[in-house]
């Protein structure tokens, strides 16, 4: 699955797409593939503060847990309730199954993230190692 060019990415395999001051955050297709069947997503509450590189929740498969790292700092404005009952949405289409939306407090943080090409190269490197 191609990595959307208008998203930005973390080295911990989260993506963010930004519209105005709101960032929408999910995990990448590579991340969902490495985890396998996702059974549960633990998310923060609307209004919680998140920080860039800080954890904001976790995704669980049957035999593994992976922390979620936030690409940016800000305040949670929405969580995807659909994932409560259908966490498999992430497996079906990771790049549309968003997890949280965040009101950015420091848009400059976006510049430190990877673009699609850089992320793809990073993934190639990881899989080769």
């Amino acid at each position, binding site marked *: 699955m191609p990595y959307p060019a208008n998203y930005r990415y973390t080295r911990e395999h989260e993506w963010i797409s930004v519209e105005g001051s709101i960032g929408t955050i999910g995990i990448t297709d590579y991340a969902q593939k490495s985890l396998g069947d996702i059974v*549960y997503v*633990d998310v923060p509450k609307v209004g919680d503060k998140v920080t860039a590189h800080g954890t904001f929740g976790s995704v*669980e*498969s*049957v*035999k*593994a*847990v992976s922390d979620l790292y936030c690409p940016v700092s800000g305040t949670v404005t929405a969580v995807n309730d659909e994932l409560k009952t259908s966490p498999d949405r992430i497996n079906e289409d990771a790049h549309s199954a968003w997890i949280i939306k965040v009101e950015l407090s420091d848009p400059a943080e976006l510049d430190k993230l990877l673009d699609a090409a850089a992320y793809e190269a990073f993934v190639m490197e990881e899989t080769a190692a």
Partner: protein
Amino acid sequence: MRYLPKSDAEREQMLAEIGARSIDDLFAVIPAEYRLNRDLDVPRQHAESEIIDYFRNAATKNTVGYYSFLGAGSYRHYRPVIIDSLVQRGEFLTSYTPYQAEITQGTLQAIFEFQTMIAELTGMDVANASMYDGSTGTAEAVMMAVRVTGRHKAAVARTVHPEYREVLATYTKYQGLPSNEVGFDRRTGRIDLAALEAEVSEETAAVLVQSPNFFGVIEDIPAIAQIAHAKGALLVVAITEAISLGIVRPPFEADIVAMEAQSCGVALSYGGPFCGVIATKEQYVRQMPGRLVGQTVDRDGYRGFVLTLSTREQHIRREKATSNICTNQALVALMATIFLTVYGKEGLRELAVHNLAKADYAARTLSAQRGARLVFEGAPSFNEFVLDTGEAPELWTPRLLDVNIAGGVPLRHWYPELGNATLWCATEVITRENIDTAAQVLAAAAVEVQEAC
């Protein structure tokens, strides 16, 4: 050695195939200075008959044939014969934790049935596969409340089993979890609601009470829940006498129930192994410690059971796990499962009512003796009560033992404010004759003391 299935010739043959000259080659990696070059100083090899003799002999020093009014968190109930017939089947006894679901469906289904019955008994939505015992289960339940609420204080009733409170203190010492004790109403033996209200704040993660409490008194769970929930704290209810749930209203308002299931067919065995269990509301299940069995289907669509939600556990989450607990008490939980099946819906109620009747008669009879009184009144109790005979228990204990009766547990050690009070338990196995005999001895002692005055 009769447990070792090899002849010396076979050992030699195996060594030869490995390419070792002697067994010492296989231990060569151990630095010479540490190798033990002598026999261990332990008793010599015993024949099976000698082993049985040794333990039988030790058991006679333990004295048998006493009628016991001891309770206080460990209860003597009749154990149906089929419990031991079934749990001694090698397929249950000598099986491991059911990680390989295809060949452990027996254990898995039995645990699923256990979880269901415990949820039904306690009035909760779900229960886990069991914990070490009631005391550690209670400590784990409080820590679970900390995870759920994100708060770091606990209010603990002084009417919770004193040893449970000690265990909780050990568990929470290094978790930054101060727990303050809340006293009890000297008339009823229930938690002091005004003191509780004053203690609970927006920082309280858990209110911990026991019901029936350590004095046998049933706590006012709806009122306690109201106080806890008003401040956003969770209510944790510990239960040491599971049989009470046959007739006592379950703590529906609790958020977490930590129960000791020893009463359900588990031998006293000087305090262990017992069987703790945690039950809770559906929404907290992912914060629950311990193993859980869930229902699913196999590839052909048949119903089957697996250990599930294991990402909560230490072998996956390591230092971030909900608890470091690894084992449960599967075989003891199986005993409880069989016990509850034997008694069933009607039987458990009847059993509980017998307990209620025996304790009621015992409380009335013993407290009617001269100088004796019930310490708490005005709140219902189950099969235990606190008695003050007006004199030190040391005075009458030997007299009771002379007639083969073990009387109540002295409370002074834990509750100095209760002076000479003792905690008595009368389950279904106590007879009217036992109670009447104990009453006569207490009466005689009282007369004697009076004459001496």
